[in-house]
């Protein structure tokens, strides 16, 4: 039998590392500040110290019987299925593709790709339908925001069709 859950240990150490990181950056901040003698580094130091202490506390729990009162590790006890990596992957891929495409290919095309990838992640195999829905939704949002709300969104490759609207 495993004595501790590796995910909880990893997260606890991650919190600890974040706290040390905050403390490290805080050391580079200036400390002088007005009448109070409280500079811009004081609260960061408090927050950093707090995160370090919480990281230690979480690690202690993780190494001593696991986090108290946490959700069961076995997915079926939570009424769920086991971690489905492709679903996680498709959604992440969609978000990264969107990031890469939005400034270059434009809001509408990035939106279509994101929509199709997320739907695929949720198990949809109807790619044509998803691309169609993605187009309708992205174009609708684009026109609403650019024409009605005057919020600039990139037209990208569709500039010849969408005209002067957007950037």
């Amino acid at each position: 039998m495993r004595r501790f859950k590796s995910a909880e240990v990893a997260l606890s150490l991650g919190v600890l590392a974040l706290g040390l990181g905050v403390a490290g950056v805080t050391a580079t901040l200036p400390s002088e500040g007005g009448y109070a003698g409280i500079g811009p580094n004081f609260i960061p130091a408090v927050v950093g110290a707090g995160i370090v202490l919480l990281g230690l506390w979480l690690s202690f729990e993780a190494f001593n019987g696991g986090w108290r009162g946490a959700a069961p590790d076995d997915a079926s006890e939570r009424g769920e299925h086991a971690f489905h990596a492709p679903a996680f992957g498709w959604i992440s891929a969609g978000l990264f593709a969107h990031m890469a495409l939005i400034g270059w290919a434009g809001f509408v095309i990035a939106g279509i790709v994101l929509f199709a990838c997320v739907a695929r992640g949720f198990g949809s195999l109807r790619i044509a339908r998803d691309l169609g829905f993605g187009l309708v939704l992205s174009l609708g949002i684009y026109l609403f925001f650019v024409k009605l709300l005057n919020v600039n969104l990139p037209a990208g490759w569709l500039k010849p069709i969408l005209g002067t609207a957007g950037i």
Partner: protein
Amino acid sequence: MEAFEALMAGFAVALKPINLLWGFIGVTLGTFIGVLPGVGPALTVAMLLPLTVKLDPTGALIMFAGIYYGAMFGGSTTTILLNTPGESASIATALEGNRMAKRGRAGPALATAAIGSFVAGTIATVLLTLLAPVVVDLALKFGPAEYFSLMVFAFITVSAVLGSSTVRGLTSLFIGLFFGLIGIDSQTGQPRFAFGVAELLDGVDVVVLAVGLFAVGEALYVAAYQSRLTESIEKLKGSIMMSAEDWKRSWPAWLRATAIGFPFGTIPAGGAEIPTFLSYTVEKKLSRHPEEFGHGAIEGVAGPEAANNASATGVLVPLLTLGIPTSATAAILLGAFQNYGLQPGPQLFQAQSDLVWGLIASLYVGNVILLILNLPLIGIWVKVLQIPKDILYAGILVFATLGAYSLHQSWVDLLTLYVFGLLGFAMRRWDIPVGPAVIGLILGPLAETQFRRALSISQGDATVFFTQPISASFLAVTAALVILPWAVRRWRR
């Protein structure tokens, strides 16, 4: 009487046709988005924030009041028909509401939720109207030391006292406080934790954090752990009307729940979770039909739903009068105020009386709109519920990324959004509450400002927090809340 005149002036603002229209749009959109499974009130408000960028502050805030109420009601519809509570405050409703729907009584369940929300919301708004000027008078006496101690009190209650684990609640809070530090220090202009990235110098936007945690994190989680499950939606059969018996059993529950929900909303007690459960327990105890509980007792829907709405209104008391958000949704609403350069608090009541009272008046109007809009449109909301999950989450993410991108037109904000999404996924999976992080992000910088101001005034004397009586009592209560439960547990052993 002063408050009455101010309220009448507020109605003059809220009843302007254009503001009525914003309220109407807000309630409709709020309900529409709130009905979507997996979308709670916090995410609804965060996703719809970009829509108001071009509105004047009064119109925008009136629209937000509508969104806030609509999202609450939409959530209860989902719970009753789908049995997947979008938020913890709906769990009590799910116990009885979904059972009623399974027995073919979805109509009366939805009706008692809607009418109960209206009754509770309206009474709670009256209480808000009466209480707000009193709190404002008190708050005008507060200096920076009092504000700081009050904020410490709020931090501790929302993170450490409630929830399944003190350490995980505090961790969430401190991560939020850290995010709040990113950007330019408001007192000295010193950049902190920005690492030269222009988008980070502006600080972490509450919309990006909330949408990342609630939308991206939720999508990743549901896809990874639930997308291969099937679930059933209860059909809306039979009459939507409540019988005389239903009325007789519902109205005392509505009133009792209002009395429970409103006070819980006004104190920083982590939102509507406790009052809804408390109301459920009270109704179960007092019911003449205790055997029906667990099989669809109408009091078990009427009470928690009314308590939920009453506490949602109660939350607006500390938000408007002190500028202190006590729930994730309230923190996002505070972010909406800040977008317009407004800082809720006693000064806002004096400087922008029309805006604040217009907002309060619009709460009365919003409740009425909600009532007349929702029951007739219930068929549409049921259709919305039937949107398949793949289409639903794909649409949510297209909208969620828009909110982040429109801040600076930069992909960096989209990367930040994804990082918050991963964080939200991990927090959901390993049972770390997300509310304290959102509150920490918004309230942290305000607390730091008050802290430094207090020490400037006292010329660096840190005892000021303990020697001022009001400040000292806030800290004493905070300490008691932390120590007492722990001491009681020790003593019982």
